[in-house]
């Protein structure tokens, strides 16, 4: 049996989000809870599957580097129908392109921003399950902050995100400069 990979363990999971965003955000911008045939027919259905707005929310939280704990009561949380490994596969959606690599970038970001004792994990002193739990928590908390951010904007102006470029503008506001490279950062060969 091939050695288990932390990426695969993570990708088989399904992140949680707070139910309160279901109507105010997810259903507003996605075809969440609808048949695949009627995708994006209505005004404002900017995105397809519900996870798409989750990804957007996640990146907002990530770039702002702001997390927000999910509500304690697990009854008030929900997950999407598809685990992460299927996100962005969009093969049957007209006018869209698949973006499977984005999952890997999300994972990369989670590794960078989650405080896991990898040495302990590597030694077997910590279970891989525990490590993946921590990654999921980071993911959920970033997205939760992102949803909160959107909700805030929508409270001020309910049509805020119905402008064509509104979501893009959020991301254009972040610094896109490429940090200076140092030798330290260069990956070294393990051989």
């Amino acid at each position, binding site marked *: 049996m091939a050695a288990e990979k932390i990426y695969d363990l993570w990708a088989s999971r399904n992140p949680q989000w707070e139910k309160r965003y279901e109507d105010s955000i997810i259903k507003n911008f996605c075809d969440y809870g609808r048949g695949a045939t009627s995708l994006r027919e209505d005004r404002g259905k900017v*995105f397809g599957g519900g996870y798409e707005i989750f990804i957007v929310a996640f990146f907002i939280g990530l770039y702002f580097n702001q997390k927000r704990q999910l509500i304690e009561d697990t009854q008030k949380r929900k997950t999407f129908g598809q685990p992460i490994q299927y996100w962005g596969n969009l093969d049957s959606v007209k006018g869209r392109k698949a973006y499977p690599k984005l999952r890997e970038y999300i994972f990369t970001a989670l590794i960078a921003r989650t405080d896991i004792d990898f040495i302990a994990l590597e030694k077997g002193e910590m279970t891989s399950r525990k490590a993946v739990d921590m990654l999921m928590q980071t993911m959920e908390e970033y997205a939760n902050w992102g949803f909160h951010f959107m909700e805030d904007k929508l409270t001020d102006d309910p049509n805020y995100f119905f402008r064509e470029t509104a979501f893009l503008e959020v991301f254009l506001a972040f610094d896109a400069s490429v940090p200076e490279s140092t030798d330290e950062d260069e990956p070294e060969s393990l051989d």
Partner: protein
Amino acid sequence: MIIKEIKINNFRSYYGSNHLSLSKGLTLVIGDNGDGKTTLFEALEWLFDTTGENRKDSHISEKRKSELEIGEIDEVSVNITFEHDGEKEIEKSFTFERISEDNIRTRDYKFVGYFIDGAERHSIAGDKLLNMCFEPVIRKYCLFKGENELNVFDNDTALKTLVDTFSGIRDFEKLVELTTEFEHKSANAANRELQNDKKVSNQAKELNAQLNDVTNDIQSIKTELNQKKISINEFSSKLELLEKNQETSERYQAIKERIKGLKDKRAKLAAWSSCEYSTNLLDEYWILRSFPAIIKEFSAKVSALSKEKRRLDKQETERRAKEAGEREAISKIQKLANDAVPLPWNLPDEATMKEMIDDEICKVCGRPAPKGSEAYEFMCNKLNEYLAHIAAEANKNTATKEDDEKPLFPNSFINELHSRQIKLSGDTEQEISKIATTISDRLEFVTKRKADLAEVEKQLQELETEQNDLLMQSGLSAELLDKSISDLRGFFDAKSRAESRVSELETTLKFKESARAEIQEKLSQLEPTSSMTQVYQRVHTAFERITKAFSNAKEQNINNFLQMLETESNKYLQKLNKNDFYGIIRIRKTINNSARIELYSDNGTRIENPNGALKTTMYMSVLFAISQITTLKREQDYPLIFDAPTSSFGGFKEDTFYNVIDTIDKQCVIVTKDLLNIDKATGQKTLDSDTINKLSCSVYRIEKIEPFNDKDLSTIQTVVKQVR
């Protein structure tokens, strides 16, 4: 009739009460598309309509309607105050009431006029007052919508109506009829007498028979001639239309081609300028625009982990190597500590040892070792030591083996991350760092294409306007222009056949008429014996002359009227086309007693297709002339109201036009979207104050109140502002 004030209440977009005071000369009402220009015009049309009770739900202001609570009532009304032998007023109105959520009921239709007699104000039926002050025939020459309705001679009865109204020809008509009858009767009487006269009876009978024949021939020739002339006329106008079509058709096709080209371009630009800004975040990975920093963080973290792991790995390897070395050393040291080589720990073996204990003899030295003796105890201890050593050895082996085999890092997650780090570096990292540029390039591209698209849209709109103008000016349908003009030849042939027949007939007619004249001459030269017969003859001759005189006078009267109309029209045409070519208007009577307005060049060439502006001013000149003649003949004035008469004018022509019309001594209301300047950046339209300030007329601006919902009629309200 000179209108002093117009009041409009809840009529369509004119929500609530609105009023305009008109000057005696020109009043300009300026508004953009959809601002309520045509509504103003139609409000007056509604007021001037005396054909019956005419109230429509669509007349009611949607805005007012939407505000009404159930049971609430309001009124639609249009009212004018005017000067016509003193001040008078006419108002048409009806009330409307909301009776349910979806239903409005209209009732109480009123059409009332008021006039002041002495100090008292009297009311009178609206249509009656209107017909008194503003006759229906004159009303025909008052309201004109667009450029197409300006040709007042477009229908066959127009000239007759006009001539009847203004030239007093009706009196001549009666006289001509009367004298013709006298002539007829006197001819019969004279003939009867001649045929009874002994001397000339036979001659007279013969001449009369000839005269009858010739007269019948002439009658049938004239009938045929008339028919042929009518058909030539029809062929001519058809040919003219077709010839005009040919040119128009070519222009139309050219415009159509250009429109098609622009539409293709627009489709391309629309595709280029459309951008799925939101889904591109995912599909095109635009969301990774700021990701390079995160990759750096990841790389730094993974590098550090890899290093740490290797460090720990090395440390462990060193530790293990050290422990193994120590063990070997200890065993070596133990060997070298005793000079005498001790018996190996395993000699004697377990079985031998147990046997010696059982036998109570030390079989190494051969001495007995009874139970309880020192030697016996020694052997028991030796056995225990042996067993302990075995056990310890066994333990020691297991521990060392375990220590040697168990790795420090049983998992390889860090290696997984490290592979990922390698995968991310190089090309992938570079690709991600380019995303920011890709997005800004794309946004710039889209912005530019959108600007191109707007330009194309503008051009397209202009071309479409040109196309519509062409259709409007030519009065032809798009279908007709799309067809090829193949029947031109057929009309030509038919026309020339008719023309040669006409010349044949005319020759015959001349011949027959001179024959008739001869016979009549002969008849008149007969010398009857009876003096009474002579008297009859003379009476007939007298009536004949009188009839001719009246007929000629009637004809002359029409010609004089047309001449006067022509002269007056040309005066206006010259004014309206100051500093431009204008030609000469000729008003020609047609064979079917209608009239045609035609434009000629000074050298006698007919200008077949005057340009839109010239044609409009030509027709307007005739309208002004008619109005002028009305004032002269009837001593009454009436306003001329035009809705958008200048749509085919260019900017320069517009300015001149308004300058001239401003000085014409005639009440004239022009509702127009001219004289508005467009701010290209904002699309905002403002009054062209430079041009307006040069005019002396009253100016009103009508506008939709902003904001409005472009899909909800009940949010549309026109406001009337007096600019000057």
